[in-house]
């Protein structure tokens, strides 16, 4: 009787199984990576009607975030500046710059400039800016170093897991209330003696932190967390209503 199956087919099932396994794992891994916000969102840099350079306005001119995003500390939304705000300066400065044409047109016609939305939470997520920026969370914690971006882009994933990283361990992100809009702030900047004089230190700290050479983010965060009674919710209702 002829041999229906040549010899090489003996290994075929194993090969198929291995290949199949690799393909399935590959697909899973690829999906895992490519559809997560880390991939789909981070780096999103849409073309805006006006190429607004945050770096010039913030780093070079030293403007505070709240000059334009004026209601960030009172409202849930951080508003975009209206045309009036832009024109407060740009009737004097760069008043003929062709890049600012849409702003000038809006000023004349009263029709708003349509900015492309960059950071978007789903409809069932209720994020509140005021609750964060008044309680020691900096703009930079969620939006990255916007002050160095000439074109603004999505810097952090804004996924639920990412939110919870901070809600579970806020001490890794808290900073003094005066440094919220200071995008370049680093824990090293805080002088331990001054910091401890102002905010004290956690009750369970064993040594005197004011004597330290430098304070770590953890130490600053734990101090502020205790002093300000920071207890971020990790319950559904905090964001989903």
């Amino acid at each position, binding site marked *: 009787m002829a041999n229906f199956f040549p010899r090489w087919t003996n290994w075929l099932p194993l090969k198929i199984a291995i290949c199949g396994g690799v393909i399935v794992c590959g697909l899973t891994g690829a999906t895992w990576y490519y559809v997560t916000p880390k991939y789909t969102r981070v780096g999103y840099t849409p073309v805006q009607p006006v190429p607004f350079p945050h770096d010039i306005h913030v780093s070079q001119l030293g403007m505070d975030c709240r000059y334009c995003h004026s209601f960030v500390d009172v409202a849930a939304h951080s508003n975009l500046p209206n045309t009036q705000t832009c024109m407060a300066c740009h009737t004097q400065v760069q008043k003929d710059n062709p890049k600012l044409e849409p702003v000038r047109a809006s000023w004349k016609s009263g029709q708003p400039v349509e900015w492309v939305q960059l950071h978007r939470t789903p409809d069932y997520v209720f994020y509140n800016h005021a609750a964060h920026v008044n309680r020691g969370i900096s703009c930079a914690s969620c939006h990255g170093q916007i002050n160095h971006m000439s074109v603004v882009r999505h810097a952090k994933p804004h996924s639920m897991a990412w939110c919870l990283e901070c809600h579970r361990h806020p001490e890794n992100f808290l900073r003094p209330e005066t440094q919220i809009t200071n995008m370049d702030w680093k824990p090293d900047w805080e002088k331990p003696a001054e910091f401890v004089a102002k905010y004290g230190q956690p009750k369970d700290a064993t040594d005197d932190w004011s004597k330290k050479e430098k304070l770590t983010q953890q130490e600053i965060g734990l101090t502020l967390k205790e002093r300000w009674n920071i207890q971020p*919710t990790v319950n559904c209702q905090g964001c989903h*209503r």
Partner: protein
Amino acid sequence: MKRVFEHPAEKLTGKRYWRSLNEFSDTPEFRGWLEREFPSGAAQLNGDEWSRRGFLKLMGASMALAGFGLTSCRRPEMHLVPFSKSVEWTIPGKALYYATAMPRRTGAIPLIAATVDGRPIKLEGNPLHPASGGATDAFAQASLLDLYDPARAKRFAEVKEKEENGEKKRVLETRDRAAFEKYLADLQTKIAADGGAGLAFLSEEVHSPTRERLRTKLQEKYPKMRWCVYDPLLTEAQSFATQLSFGDNARLVPRLERADVVLAIDSDFLDCGEGDLAGIRAFSSRRRIGEAKETMNRLYTVENCFTLTGAMADHRMRCPASQIPAFTRALAGKIAIATKDQGLASTIATLSEPVNAMQFDDAWLTECANDLMAKPGASLVLAGPHQPVVVQLMVYAINSALKNVGATLVIREFIKTPKTNSILQLAGEMNSGRIKQLFILGGDPVYNAPKGITIDKDTKAPVDWTDLQKKVPDVVRLGYYEDATSELSTWQVPSAHYLESWSDALTNDGAYLAIQPMILPLFGGMSELDLMNAVLGNAKVDGPELVQETFRATAPPGDFQTAWTQLLRDGFATHVALKEKPPTFNSNNAGGVAHTLWTSAPNPTLDAPEIVLTRSYNIDDGRYINNGWLQELPDPITKLTWDNAALMSPAMAKHLGVETGDLINIAVTETTKDTNGKNIRRELVIAALISPGHADNSISIALGYGRKRTGPIGEEAGFNGFLLRNSSNPHFIAVDSKTVESVSVTTAPTEKQPASPSPGAPSAAPTTPPKVRAHTLGSYALSITQDHWSIEGRGLVREASLEHYREDPEFVKKIAGDEELPARLPSIYSHPPLTAEQQWGMSVDLNVCTGCSACIIACQAENNIPIVGKLQVGHGRAMHWLRLDRYYASEKPFNQDLGEYPENPEIVHEPMMCQHCENAPCETVCPVNATVHSEDGLNVMAYNRCIGTRYCANNCPFKVRRFNFFDYNQRPMGKKKVGPLEVYQEYIAPFTEKGAPDTTKLQKNPNVTVRMRGVMEKCTYCVQRIEEAKIAAHVKAGASPNTRIPTDSFTSACAQVCPTGAIVFGDVKDPESKVSKMKMQDRNYRLLEYLNVNTRTSYLARIRNPNPKMPDANRIAVASLGHESHENGAKHEPAEMKPEEKP
């Protein structure tokens, strides 16, 4: 060893609580509702609709096809659009609050409107003004939906007569505002030609000083014009009697907080739909009882059909509406003899003994009269406004004899108004052709004017308004909808909503309120004031100038601009107040008029019952017919949605051989004759509804339904009671010797009226075969929610009489076996860590809950709850998070096999929403953790996690979870004609247009997720408000540790709206909060305590205050306790009192 859990034995020694006659008789239909969370079939598309399997197949196919067309997985590019110039006060996403007011028939309600990004999203009462006290009613809440109604009139239209297929039709043709203004200018020259002799205005009743001012101006310009006011539910009887008894411009203000004993004679004064929120609050302030030693008021009612007042009563007598004059006379006689009051004696002296009147229980009457007389100056007798003048006069005389006038009944001098004609006078003039230009401001007279409104001179036959309106050459109609009246007008002008226009109004006790617009007219509508101003020939006014002028005339103290700003800020002005009048009752006037007007109809019989036309709790006189929230709101008493029906007692139904839902034919033969010399016969085919506690020989029909032309919500809803109504019998039709020859109620169709086929919708009505059931007219599907979400008797409602409460302040624990519970119930589940500083909870005081249902609508408005339509309500898919369970309570067992039913049960209302169990059964069964517990004690729902298994609903012992069976927010619902077929659009959802109408979207609360199909939802304790308060506290705290929300600084939507403050929400951990104080009272109980669910919502037991001397005292509120009856001393044996077991 397996242990089967058993509920504690029900202590039903005397009283039984039941929701419907089905439950009372324990029918299989009721079992179906009881045993399942969602009724059998609720999860299936059944009947003549699609099968679930077929539907899924189709959906699968379309999904696969959609896969081929996947174009892009990238998110769509969305835009952020800031203002080009800053808007004053506006912070994007933050609510702004403005004071305004809702004009109403009886007086405006001061409101605070919350607007977000320029659109009003929620109305609340103005807490600064006592006419609201922070509360509102269902109509005020729902009026917001009217603003965004996609079906409202959106265009100026000229009505043209056109011939189509040989038929003359009146068609509305779209015009613009300029065309209307041109027409109006031409009209003005016509009006001016004869000094306004042909000009007439027909308006609705609202008390607006600016309207009165413009009207006076119009009268100066056109001295011969006529001004008429018509409101189908407003009667002149009461105001006429008031003027007669207490002088011109007198207005009576009942001071219920001073009354110890109140007798309501056919008066539904606790119905907050009439707008008297202050009165209801005053009444409930005497009803609220903190501890056993406190006192409470006592309420007697005499009425034909159960009202909210009747449900609240301590003693209730069923009495046909036509027998109220006889009752009042009998009562007045008793009081006159006992008090020897001259005024009362002379008022009733000449009233003859009524013939064939109802025999009243003499003991009831005597003891009631004695109780009233025992509290001179602290009792109060109120008569319903639709009772005739004589009843009103007698009631005033009784109050005067009881020294109540000036004490519990205060007389105020109302602002003098120029003479107003009635619609009857107007109709007469229209008939004689004197009216050439008619302005109809609001209302819908073609639909709701009395039939046979005037007698034609030539034919001597009555004429209907429809024919009269055709006789007027120029009719301008300002209407909110394009309806029957618009069609018979010359021009239809879209009316602006009160939230879109400047105006002012008076409350029912005469306080001056400002009405300021929240939004520009969405569809370019005109307000009444705009139109009147235009008729005056003045230029268009956009701002508040017209109102400012009126306000200036009231001479506000100080600088005008400051006073005006203050008015807009507070919503009311304090310098305008009504003067008190001396409390003198003019018995000479009253006696004379009473003598001439005295008439008493004979007692109606089963064969010739009286027909009573009532105000609908849902849609008022029909003005809210197109409001989906109100349509779907179950009637507080009958729990009927989307329809009205002929309410009758079980005895009456048995006599007619009908069941709920069967159609009956009501025919009224009048004594007036038509052109052929035949007696006029008015007929109405209407579905019957058996309502326990209704007077026998009497049928009640709510007005306002059965409209041919309005929006899609209102069309086809209910039956038109106005068809029976003529000008001589506007409120009840009973056979008397004068106007009504006969009234017949049959189940047989008349010659003209063929049997109407039953609509395709499955009937929610009972289908048990009665002994004799006439089927000639067929039946009609009514969607009644009284059995929905039923829970078997588990001591859910607990009540006692005041006497018993004093004997045993802990009675509430002894009803459902709570006292037998171990101190700490065992639990196999780990309890959630309730670590938050503040813990939320709720308390509901059943003693002051009137059942008005305002909370349901407030919840719907706040939480973006969709309406589901009549069919889906019938299937048990209604979405209300908060439901109001209405329980009937009756004492002795009845043998249903012999057709015995309790004649006069009591009613207890119980608001029921998610109880926020600390050990929530729903949480343990969710496979995806979509419902979990928060650290502040809430049972929270994460909609985006929910996969719709509905396990949670099945495990909920309170049946408070609601499931989105359809995409109510995105897809159209309800019947639609597709070719020759009528289909329900929800069943063909993939083929209907997706997306809500733009205007409907504007109403949604931006702080609450709009849920999609397949998601479970339930009461959240208004978590968005809790979080908002928390965030505000955190923002305020900033760099400091104090994040505590101030005590009672916010509340849930239902608690905020409640006119009596029955619902209280707050921090249960804070001993100073209102809710903690309520929970500390000894009447406090929690539902199903023995299940160890640890609910956060608790209830305060109902206390009634029966008069021990009354003949029915021993059966009021005492029976649920299982203790010895006071009166007869007989011991109730539990076994004996158990309901009959069914084979």
